């Protein structure tokens, strides 16, 4: 049943209250205009700019309105909309619009006066840099859009808005540079977004679940970031970013494996240092996944492969340890995860005390009591620290580490080797929106390799990555013509 806006203000008021279910933050303010008409202003408290409402809307109407048809020219607000049905009012009002009913008018006017409390733009907590911009995205999508606009000053930067979420009606927005982004990926992305039916979007992770290529794998095929300069770097290479109202996480599509190893700081430091950091990160990735399994395999099955002097000291140190190497490793990993998880939840005041206790107790005393061997503690601690170097794939690292540990404990080095092979083949078989996940290593691309480990300086990276960019826009540092 379509409810039309009536002449009668009281009926409008009842209708509006009904639509909003008598919520307490619906403010309805009636006043008389200069032309002696009753006027009703309705808005959701807290979502609008009160002084703007008073000065620019109510005041001119009270003082200057001569006839009902002149409302738009009297009011000092740009961007008004005329509506004639009730249901066209409710959604914009939740976004911060003010509705104006006037007696004897069968139309209502909507004015945009949205203004609300928002977090200030500050340094993002999870991605910190020493050198480089420190702004981070916040939860308001318009501010985020502004942050991006201020970096890419180009008329080809396009925002495409969508509303997703049956209950939450969250606004999400695709961001790309027209002419550089690949058309097939855009189309595919649009197709997938339109298929999303979900109750509410609380974070971009929800969107991720619905649009990703391989939902059952543990490896994320869609990247995310909280810093504008990182997002812009990816947009410039042809990727598409997705903003979501209510969360500072911005998704970037498509994602390839080497992005896990890249941070903004590699590009802001000297290239040689960047190379060092990349090598360190690859080493950390391998260590974190493989080291416990490799060590347990050597100790349980292949004692002949351990150098003699190390074996002697190991034999001395584990006399009296009641468990097998596999159980020791599992125990230590359990301790590690307990410490990590409780460190997240502990309030700041007792934080330091508990850290000391846990470190001492679970580490040193366990060794002295003969529960675990000291080398196992070192191995697991190293693996645990290395996993934080690659923050984007932490989930994957933890689970795979366990799997390879179990394989190593049951089948020795053969099991570890098989686990690595299966893991790598799985990685190679993944695709992110049509781009192979192990690009540029697996389908080899020489230009893409310049960004892999042996990082060249920005001056030498002359081409955008082949798989993600429009074919006509492969060369960097040139203006792009739009395709007609």
């Amino acid at each position, binding site marked *: 049943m379509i409810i039309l806006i009536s002449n009668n203000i009281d009926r409008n008021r009842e209708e509006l209250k009904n639509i909003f279910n008598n919520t307490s933050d619906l403010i309805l303010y009636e006043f008389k205009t200069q032309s002696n008409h009753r006027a009703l202003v309705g808005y959701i408290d807290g979502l609008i700019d009160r002084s703007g409402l008073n000065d620019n809307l109510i005041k001119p109407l009270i003082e200057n309105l001569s006839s009902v048809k002149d409302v738009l020219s009297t009011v000092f607000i740009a961007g008004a909309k005329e509506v004639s049905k009730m249901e066209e009012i409710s959604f914009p009002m939740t976004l911060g619009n003010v509705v104006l009913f006037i007696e004897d008018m069968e139309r209502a006017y909507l004015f945009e006066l949205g203004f609300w409390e928002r977090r200030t733009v500050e340094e993002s907590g999870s991605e910190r840099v020493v050198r480089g911009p420190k702004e981070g995205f916040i939860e308001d999508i318009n501010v985020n859009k502004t942050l991006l606009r201020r970096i890419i000053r180009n008329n080809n930067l396009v925002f495409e808005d969508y509303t997703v979420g049956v209950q939450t009606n969250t606004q999400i927005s695709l961001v790309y540079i027209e002419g550089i982004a690949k058309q097939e990926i855009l189309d595919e992305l649009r197709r997938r977004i339109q298929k999303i039916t979900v109750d509410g979007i609380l974070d971009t992770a929800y969107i991720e679940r619905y649009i990703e290529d391989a939902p059952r794998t543990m490896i994320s095929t869609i990247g995310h970031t909280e810093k504008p300069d990182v997002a812009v770097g990816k947009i410039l290479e042809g990727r598409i970013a997705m903003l979501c109202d209510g969360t500072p996480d911005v998704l970037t599509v498509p994602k390839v494996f080497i992005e896990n190893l890249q941070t903004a700081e590699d590009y802001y430091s000297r290239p040689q240092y960047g190379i060092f950091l990349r090598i360190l990160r690859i080493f950390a990735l391998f260590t974190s996944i493989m080291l416990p399994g490799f060590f347990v395999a050597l100790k349980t099955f292949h004692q002949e*492969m351990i*150098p003699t002097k190390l074996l002697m000291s190991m034999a001395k140190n584990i006399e009296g340890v009641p468990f097998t190497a596999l159980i020791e490793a599992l125990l230590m990993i359990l301790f590690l995860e307990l410490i990590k998880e409780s460190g997240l939840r502990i309030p700041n005041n007792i934080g330091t005390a508990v850290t000391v206790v846990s470190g001492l107790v679970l580490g040193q005393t366990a060794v002295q009591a003969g529960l675990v061997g000291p080398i196992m503690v070192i191995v697991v601690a190293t693996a645990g620290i290395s996993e934080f170097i690659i923050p984007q794939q932490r989930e994957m690292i933890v689970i795979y580490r366990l799997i390879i540990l179990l394989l190593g404990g049951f089948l*020795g*080095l*053969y099991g570890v080797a098989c686990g690595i092979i299966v893991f790598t083949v799985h990685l190679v078989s993944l695709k992110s929106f049509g781009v192979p996940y192990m690009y540029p290593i697996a*389908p*080899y691309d020489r230009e893409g390799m310049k960004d892999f480990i042996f990082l060249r300086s920005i001056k030498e990276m002359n081409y955008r990555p082949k798989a993600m960019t429009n074919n006509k826009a492969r060369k960097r540092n040139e203006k792009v013509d739009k395709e007609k």
Partner: protein
Amino acid sequence: MNEKVSSRQIIFLIIINRITTILTVMSTIYMSPANQDIWIIIILSFFYTMLSSIPLLYLANKFNDFTIIGYLEKIFGKVLGKGIGALYGVFFGTIAILFSYITIQMIRSSFLTDTKPGMIISVLIVICVYISSKGMGTMLSSGELFIPIILTSLIAFAFLGYKNIDLSLLLPVYKDSNFLDINIGAIQLSLIFIDIYPLTVIVPKLEDKKHINKIFVKSVCYSLLFVLMVVIVTQTGLGIEQAKHSNFPFLTYVRRIKAYSVFERIESVYTIMWISAMIIKITTYIYLSYQSFKEIFRKQKKGISLYIIGALVGLTTYYLAEINPMMVEIKPIQLSEYIYYFIFKTLIPLIALVVYLFRRKSFEKQERLGNFR
């Protein structure tokens, strides 16, 4: 599966297949003349390899949109072609069985001495079937990832043992054997390298089909360099005679590496590389067998023959390993095995070539009428 396969990936695949033929059980050491002149046979086998692969290469160039089974069917007619295709499928399966048997034996003797072979075999077959089920593109891409690492580590292992090798064992050159022995050895060596088959099956998906010959020549050259390096290092490290006594010579060589007091007992790294290389090889042959059966029985449930082939290979290997250990037969390769390889590598393609040449007229007529298939 519209992915194009780049020539680089194929070259890597063929190189690793050729190297793993002799990496574990170094059968080249037993080929005539079986003394310090083995390296001459390796170099000479390049020539014979080219010679014995001419029919296949020619056919691959001519029919560069079909796999080997495809054009066999075209040349020989439906029934006979399907029959020969099935034979090829069985041939690839037997190669896969042979190499998985060698792998199991080496793992059982050297690393996991007490583990039941059933476990090892089942894990091996499951992995190979898993990789094959992901398709050719994935297999080649992951090969592109692994194989350079494997090759680099082979070079590293060969050079880390420099203290243990004594190059004077290779003298006197060419004095202890005569020309006939060397040629027989080179022919034998070229026969056991049957690794042109990945090329024949992947040809339809190749990116640039004009370079088939170049691909093959390049891969043979590079792989012979590696084979040369591995064999020379093993022979001079262990001694000519002692290398023949050893079941797994290169492993023995790696166990002896002791350099700079840091690189001691690094065979754990070698184990991982070696297992990866063997898995690549076994997967290749299981995949080839699966492809040939897939092409023969055109309509079947998706991938069921893959599981059947995998199960058959696994069970046969288990039977051979547990119930009927035939280890002694791997060594000096019997004449019957040479003939077996020869039939499939050279004889059948030669016959196909001859038949094609006779029926060329009728093929061209069909082409003009647009009546292909």
